[in-house]
């Protein structure tokens, strides 16, 4: 059984993610210990909350450098979920301009309503439109609905990083990838069957 390190940095719905990993046949390890993270087969960076707080909590635990070492140098598969995806960026703007992990080029901006009906936060089920093939979406058709709950979005420097987009306040990047590093704006752990399929695909990497 593969051990998946779920980073505990005080920001989030860790239990939901751990339960979903377990349901997918993985061995979830909720931890902030660099030694345990280094032994894991893959890493999930979950997160709910504001960008500035998230970075502060990661740095306070030295997890920013652990992530660089594991994901960039050792190429361990890394999945950022929601705030965890946003923290992969160079820069965030929630709670003041803040430097991010810089693992995937881009910055995090607030969603801007494009119609009077568009309400922020973006809460609910919305389509994920695939822009290219990606192992995370194996067996998941384009335009499948996933569950979102967020007010900010990842604005990539380059379109090549974008795996999928979602039509809301324009078409924001809902899945990004750089080699073994992935980010999803939606919550796979709360997206029922398609969500669990995506997590199984991640565990299989």
């Amino acid at each position: 059984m593969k051990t998946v390190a779920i980073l505990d940095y005080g920001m989030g719905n860790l239990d939901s993610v751990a339960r979903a990993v377990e349901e997918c046949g993985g061995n979830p390890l909720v931890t902030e210990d660099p030694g345990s993270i280094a032994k894991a087969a893959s890493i999930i960076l979950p997160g709910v909350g504001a960008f500035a707080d998230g970075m502060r909590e990661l740095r306070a635990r030295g997890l920013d450098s652990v992530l660089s070492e594991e994901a960039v140098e050792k190429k361990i598969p890394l999945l950022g979920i929601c705030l965890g995806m946003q923290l992969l960026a160079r820069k965030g703007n929630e709670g003041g301009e803040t430097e991010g992990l810089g693992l995937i080029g881009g910055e995090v901006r607030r969603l801007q309503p494009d119609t009077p009906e568009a309400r922020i936060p973006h809460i609910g089920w919305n389509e994920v439109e695939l822009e290219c093939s990606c192992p995370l979406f194996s067996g998941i058709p384009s335009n499948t609905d996933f569950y979102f709950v967020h007010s900010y979005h990842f604005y990539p420097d380059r379109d090549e990083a974008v795996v999928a987009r979602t039509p809301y306040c324009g078409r924001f990047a809902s899945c990004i990838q750089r080699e073994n590093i992935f980010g999803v704006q939606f919550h796979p752990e709360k997206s029922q069957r398609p969500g669990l399929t995506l997590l199984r695909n991640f565990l299989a990497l």
Partner: protein
Amino acid sequence: MLKVRIIPTLLFKDFGLVKGVGFDSWRRVGSAMQAVKVYNMREVDELVFLDITATRDGRPPDFATVDEIADECFMPLAVGGGVRSVEDARSLLQVGADKVVLGTAAVESPDLIREVAARFGSQCAVISIDFRRIGPGVRRVFTHCGTTGTDLDPVEFAKQAQRSGAGEILLQSIERDGTMSGYDIETIRAVTDAVSIPVIASGGAGNYEHLAEAVLDGRAAAVAAASIFHFTQQTPREAKEHLGQRGIPVRR
């Protein structure tokens, strides 16, 4: 396109699920765990779970029960009842709630909305507004499961909650609750026109067309309902069929 959510509401009281009329006359409707398992299997869009006596009895949320049901819930779960502090909110999120519903505490200490939103993000802070019509054109917010009146107008309170950082409003009509006579569309529309955050309509759904009215006329982003699913043969899945036929985007 963002889908309109259909949300079964589970009311928890003394170890089981109940459903009442006008926030009173509670009837038992089964076990929480069983209901969550069924709704998870049927892939409903989201669940709202409210402990209706926690605040009245001065109890904190029942974290152990929430932990158990959240483990069976691979769908979004909003939990409320008895949340009085940032620490309560943190504990609920830790055991698997995705959103925290603030009711009485949001009225009594508006700073709590600000603190929860700042710490966990606005998307976690659902403000439950229970209201009653007390005279022609006069509506008031009630707390403590509908037992305590306030001077607050629900539309004004919704605006204030949004300013404080609320991410969503759960708008519940006390007199429509359990009557299955239709939502209070006028109040829903007044609130959706006044705020830019999503509003969940609640209280009064008795048939599928009532759900459609809350969306088409009330402009609700989501519709919550309990009696219709507990006491009739109507299901969330068929509700979606109906809404789809009325041109409303739903998840299939």
